[in-house]
């Protein structure tokens, strides 16, 4: 098994002095995208290539600029103004901004930056964001420093800062996704646990394809992954340490099968499904071993449990009413309240990190949908529709959902897609090869 480079990269960050102001002009409101606004027009932004302040940083400057633009434009919230229409050419990080030149091309925001690389291989990346129509800098300039090998993470951090300043909400670009990389024909699929940057870059494999693996899930701080493995020939919950890719099957009672595990928000306990004598119920246990608590006890199928962010409740699916529906119960088990009442079947509920919504898979009239509803079941909205969509996972800020979309037919294969919780901006995550069962990490430190 391949050893992983340590995930955490120590990045330093410091505020820069404000840029010299060429001219200041007031305008009515601040530069702001309101994410809950139902009709967002992409904001035109100018993203001139970052300046290479040392000659050996030229490639980094170009790649970093490209990743930042890809992050921002990929949200669907921004539109990049072509560089060939720029009037002012940004040739130095500290040259005064000619706001009129950027207003003339209707740029709402301007992002400038610079990259330098010292002899020890340390990369320094700095940026400033400008509100063009207000004629002033938006927030302070920031600087990130770290090993050159983490240039991509630094770029994501710049994009996260820009996103946060313009939307008022935390970004999600400096994050990773664990998923199942698939290969081979439909009747002979090979599956491996893999991890990648949220945008599909830097794919690394954590298991070989010797046994079936299903539905990996990150721990709350991203250091461990829970998944279901057929290593023993039977499905069993396994926990894997990301730093050394070492897996450990959790002790389960004899003659049982276990699957659909998820961590609690504190990362200490897990919930999962255990099948005994053909009946599947939900259990909770300490991830380091210890006693197991039964949370449901019905002859129905109870599976896909997911904690609320405060750790007090669990949303899950059950067919106790005759078809798959969503229920919420207290974390210790006990009476469950049904929350889904629409047409069709509901499964794989996942609580949003903001706590406000539950994402789910819905099957209705032979089609699959990814949808969201409030935690009381109201406000159901379907975000997608296809032959087979399933298994939503939330971006760290609760604004975007990634999921599996499988194409139809003998040559059908799964791919990862993402969609805004508004239903806008459906995109395929660019990965070589087939992929399924994504789980989004928290924002990296």
């Amino acid at each position, binding site marked *: 098994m391949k050893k992983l480079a340590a995930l955490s990269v120590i990045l330093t960050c410091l505020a820069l002095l404000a840029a010299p102001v060429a001219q200041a002009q007031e305008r009515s409101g601040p530069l702001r995208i309101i994410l809950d606004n139902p009709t967002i027009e992409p904001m035109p932004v100018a993203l001139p290539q970052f300046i290479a302040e040392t000659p050996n940083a030229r490639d980094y400057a170009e790649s970093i600029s490209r990743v930042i633009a890809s992050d921002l434009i990929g949200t669907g919230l921004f539109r990049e103004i072509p560089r060939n229409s720029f009037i002012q050419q940004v040739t130095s990080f500290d040259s005064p901004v000619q706001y009129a030149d950027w207003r003339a091309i209707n740029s709402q925001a301007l992002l400038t930056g610079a990259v330098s690389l010292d002899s020890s291989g340390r990369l320094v990346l700095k940026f400033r964001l400008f509100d063009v129509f207000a004629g002033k800098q938006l927030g302070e300039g920031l600087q990130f420093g770290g090993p050159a090998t983490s240039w991509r993470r630094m770029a994501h951090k710049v994009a996260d800062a820009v996103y946060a300043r313009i939307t008022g909400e935390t970004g999600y670009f400096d994050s990773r996704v664990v998923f199942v990389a698939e290969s081979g*024909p*439909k*009747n*002979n*699929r090979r599956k491996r646990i893999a991890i990648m940057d949220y945008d599909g870059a830097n794919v690394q494999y954590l298991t070989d394809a010797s046994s*079936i693996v*299903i*539905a990996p899930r990150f721990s709350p701080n991203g250091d461990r992954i829970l998944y*279901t493995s057929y290593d*023993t*020939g*039977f*499905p069993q919950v396994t926990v894997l340490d990301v730093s050394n890719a070492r897996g450990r099957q959790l002790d389960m009672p*004899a*003659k049982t*099968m276990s*699957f*659909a595990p998820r961590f609690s928000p504190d990362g200490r306990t897990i919930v999962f*499904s255990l*099948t005994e*004598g*053909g*009946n*599947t119920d939900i259990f909770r246990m300490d991830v380091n071993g210890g006693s197991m608590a039964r949370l449901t006890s019905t002859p129905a*199928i109870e*599976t*896909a449990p997911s904690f609320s962010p405060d750790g007090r409740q669990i949303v899950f*699916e059950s*067919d106790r009413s005759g078809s*798959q529906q969503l229920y919420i119960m207290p974390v210790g088990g006990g009476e469950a309240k049904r929350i889904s009442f629409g047409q069709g079947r509901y*499964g*794989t509920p996942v609580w949003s990190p903001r706590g406000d919504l539950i994402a789910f*898979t819905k*099957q209705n009239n*032979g089609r699959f949908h990814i949808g969201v509803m409030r935690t009381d079941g109201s406000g159901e909205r379907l975000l997608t529709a296809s*032959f*087979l969509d*399933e*298994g939503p996972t939330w971006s760290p800020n609760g604004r975007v959902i990634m999921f599996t979309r*499988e194409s*139809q*037919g*003998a040559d*059908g294969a799964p791919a990862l897609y993402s969609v805004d919780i508004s239903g806008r901006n459906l995109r395929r995550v660019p990965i070589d090869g087939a992929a399924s*069962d994504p789980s989004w990490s928290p924002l990296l430190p």
Partner: protein
Amino acid sequence: MTHLKKAALLVALLAVSACTNPDRFGNGDGGGPGGIESAELGSPGDPTSPAYFQQTIGDRVLFAVDESTLSPEARSILSEQAIWLLDNRDYNAVIEGHADEQGTREYNLALGARRASAVQQFLIAQGVSPDRLQTVTYGKERPLEVCSAESCYAKNRRAVTVITAGGIS
């Protein structure tokens, strides 16, 4: 079951599947055509052979959409399976439950387990010792047929009784 016994069973499982069922861990549950070494299986004409169980009696039963109840045809096949298992006590069985692709991954795992269990319970009711029967669910992970139509789905919604080397309780 102790880990040792489990390991022993798996070794036995792998050994048997390697000779009787070469694509067990390759092509779905190994029910695909070809590749079966009749020498290892025995002849389908020999009533004591796993080949007879697999091909003459039939090693699988099919289910309706989202169902785990046994149809009359399924009961008839399973009655024959039970008789064979009672007559051939050197062998044990692992019952694999499968689902078609119309369903979420987790639900289909649970559904496959229900199907395997339905078969297991039927065989036990016919007198086969519970110690000789294991169940495993594959959910929708191991489809036999690959088209996205009912003609394929019907064959994928199945429980397969895989004969394994016996002698382990």
